[in-house]
């Protein structure tokens, strides 16, 4: 598998009046393989959209270079900048961006007309694109009269009509309702199979990214956190952020004293878990709520009681206290506890991360402003 889209040391700084220079994208190195579906995942302000826009050619680079299909398209050193129209990409935007003054046919035909293709070819290609996006019969309709799902199909048809090698999808599903979102996900995958393009998919919805991607990049505050397959990201998150961002998480702040682990602020009872060799005095222990065993009589576990109980459709969620902290535990319906009932909990495969950094929290708040 060849590297199809390559980002080398890509950095983007924005100059803002109130906050000074903001590094929106900090030294990104990404290799996307041919035919892959690669997701950029992260909260708003993490740099994923900016990165996509640099690949598309809407933003220039402060530093670094970008290669598309073996061709250099952006380079800060060589002052090279291929304009978006010459990059031969397909792109779908969150807000659909179908042109309200053109009907469905004209919208889809636009990229071909720009290429000055002859009428019969245009007609053939447009009809094919419309067929694959289930829009046949709506050629003369104006987008304003169509539903959100149909509008997004127009955008898809318009993106595939030129048969691009690379498809950029900028949160294409987040304006659709949940049911539609799922079916569109399958349609996109089916189109990829049929037309054989490489996808970069930008989203802030982790379950969507997990379902659609071969590999994904999780980023936060302008930095790449981890690039891996969805499974590896879930099972081996490299830091607390990735752990929290993918799937459900629960965290306990702990102190390590005399080779024993205590919940922070309460040293009455130790938590019996293995301590990694590089652990410092203060740490965070992370686990999935369904990876905590809870029982009435396994005295080997940490002794505590149930603070609250919430009935969720497919499971029950308990909050139990560990020291002064509350920990989320999720169990199947058959395991029943009452409020205030005594219990013992055991951590199946906890992960260790460094304690919270206050500076990071402030930096995050600052980024929310832009």
């Amino acid at each position, binding site marked *: 598998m060849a590297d199809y889209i390559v980002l080398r040391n890509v950095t983007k700084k924005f100059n803002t009046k109130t906050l000074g220079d903001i590094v929106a994208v900090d030294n990104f190195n990404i290799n996307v393989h041919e035919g892959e579906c690669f997701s950029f995942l992260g909260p708003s302000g993490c740099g994923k*959209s900016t990165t996509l826009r640099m690949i*598309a*050619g*809407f*933003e220039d680079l402060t530093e670094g270079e970008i290669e598309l299909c073996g061709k250099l398209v952006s380079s800060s050193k060589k002052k090279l900048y291929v*304009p*978006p*129209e*010459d*990059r*031969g*990409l*397909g*792109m779908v*935007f*969150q*807000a*659909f*961006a179908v*042109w*309200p*003054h053109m009907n469905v046919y004209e919208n889809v035909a*636009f*990229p071909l007309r*720009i*290429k000055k293709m002859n009428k019969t070819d245009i007609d053939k290609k447009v009809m094919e694109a419309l067929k694959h996006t289930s829009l046949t019969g709506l050629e003369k309709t104006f987008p*304003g009269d169509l539903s959100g799902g149909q509008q997004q199909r127009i*955008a898809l048809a*318009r*993106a595939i009509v*030129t048969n691009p090698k690379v498809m*950029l999808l900028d949160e294409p599903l987040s304006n659709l309702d949940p049911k539609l979102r799922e079916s569109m996900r399958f349609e996109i995958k089916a189109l990829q199979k049929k037309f054989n393009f490489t996808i970069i998919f930008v989203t802030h919805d982790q379950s969507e990214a997990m379902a659609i991607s071969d590999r994904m990049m999780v980023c936060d505050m302008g930095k790449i956190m981890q690039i891996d397959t969805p499974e590896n990201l879930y099972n081996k998150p490299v830091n607390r952020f990735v752990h929290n961002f993918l799937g459900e998480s629960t965290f306990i702040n702990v102190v390590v004293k005399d080779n024993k682990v205590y919940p922070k602020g309460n040293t009455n009872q130790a938590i019996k878990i293995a301590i990694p060799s590089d652990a410092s005095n203060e740490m965070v222990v992370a686990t999935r709520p369904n990876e905590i065993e809870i029982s009435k009589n396994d005295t080997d576990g940490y002794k505590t009681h149930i603070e609250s109980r919430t009935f969720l459709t497919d499971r029950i969620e308990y909050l139990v206290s560990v020291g002064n902290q509350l920990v989320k535990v999720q169990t199947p319906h058959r395991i029943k506890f009452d409020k205030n009932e005594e219990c013992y909990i055991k951590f199946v495969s906890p992960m260790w991360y460094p304690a919270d950094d206050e500076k990071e929290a402030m930096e995050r708040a600052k980024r929310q402003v832009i």
Partner: protein
Amino acid sequence: MFSVNNNAMAAIDGKKRFSMDKLLTIVCFFMLFVVVIVPIFMIIFNAFFDKNGFSLNLITEQFADKKNLDAMFNTIKIAIFATIFGTIVGVFYAWLLGRSDIPAKGVMRALFNIPYMFPPFLGAMAWELLLNDRSGYLNRFFMDVLKLEKPPLNINSIWGIVFVEVSYYFPFVFMQVVSALERMDPTLEECARIAGAKQSTVIAKITLPLVKPAISAGALLILISSLAHFGVPSILGFRQEIYTLPTRIYAVIYNSGGSFEGIRQGAALSVMLVGVVAIALFIQNRILSAGNYDIIKGKSMRPTLIKLRAAKLPLLFLSIFTLFIIVIVPLGMIILISFVKAYGLPLVPENFSFINYQKVFANKGTIDSIRNSLILSVSAGIISMFLGTLVAYVVQKIKPKGSAVLEITSMLPYSIPGTVLSIGVILAWSGAIFGITLYNTLWIILVAYIARYLSFSMKTSSASLMQVSSSLEEASRACGASHSESLADITLPLIRPAMVSGFFLIFLPAMREVTTSILLYGPYTRTLGVHIYSLRDAGYIPQAAALAVVAIGLIMLLNVIVTQLTKDRKGV
């Protein structure tokens, strides 16, 4: 949807609400009848009826007079060219400031909005001083420098009028298009780039078609304003006997010494003018019946600015030059002339003094005119604010039978030229119908202002009321408040900011009004605009300029106060 809610409201309310709504509705109909319908009716009546009943004599007489026909064609010609050039200039600068990477955008935008505050007739005054064909300062300069026999430019011409009108009316298009460009989802343009279109293709195929509704709305404003415009053609046209319909109406009445025959003739000419406006509106509607697209979707992303690269400097220079011509030159000229000891003297420091300011303020008429204008604009603002909100409330929330009639009636004066409205007001309030004579009093001007500006406050209040969901009032009813309590405690506070801005929308233009008041003023009821106009007319040009400087200063000061007062308000 609203009517369903209203029925439900009426049901909980029983009889009580019904009677209060009915009262409000009746007050509305009555006020609009008196303020709008009666003057319009009086014009039509006087134009088509004489002592012997229905007759077309008066109208046909007007059409037989070549001067009137010339005026009509001039009006149309000026309006068409002002609209075309104003639209081109407006769209060009809107795009430049809204979408390109031209520097100093903030400053330029602020400056481009100045012509909007600046009374056009003062601009005409300044340009006449610079470019009249006999002694214009700039003309003399060109003749000296280029050794010309004849003055190269003549502002006292149709093209001169078009030029000055364009420089004051292009902001209508500029502001509409800039805000449309700002609200437009930038991805609409970006995906055309992705599709392979060059920047120029994107502008032609995507951007311009999408802002077409904004362009045509702005162009329509220019067209109507120019057709009805009095100030510029009267200042620039009278000396060369170039008349437009509004100035011709004024001249006819003026020459007849304000006699009833003159006013009747004016009424007949008004019918002609209204006819021209109506035809223009109809044609414009036909040509530019653009669809109303929703282009405001999507997340707000700063639009990618188009790099002008090599064209940046020339375009920046062009913008600065334009601003210089439309803002600095007229303003600077008025200020310079206001200091010159006598009109015609060279503009050098030795000839400057404060004498004009002393003279103009020694004149009792000046203080009176400022006082009159303040009284008129404050009271017209307050009365129209409440009346407009009342109409808006009745139309939006009560929706009685005939609410469409109410809405149209209140909007009617918006497309009726001020000159025409004045004649209607004269005819209605000279004792003809109610036996009340307001002629030569401030009241008659006040009535005309209210009729003229009512639609402004009605529009803002209406837009705001539309956003007040009926569930808010329903919630208050559910908490036990009566209908009138909900109105006072919930609805009114929510639309108060809109009412306040409606007030200022009326107050500011009323402060500098000339078109209506010039036909209505009496010996003691000159307004500020009229006073400047007549000082200039009587040849006291430096004094007129001094008062103009005071007026501009006053308007700018008020404008600053308004922006300070109206920002950061809660409401819808």
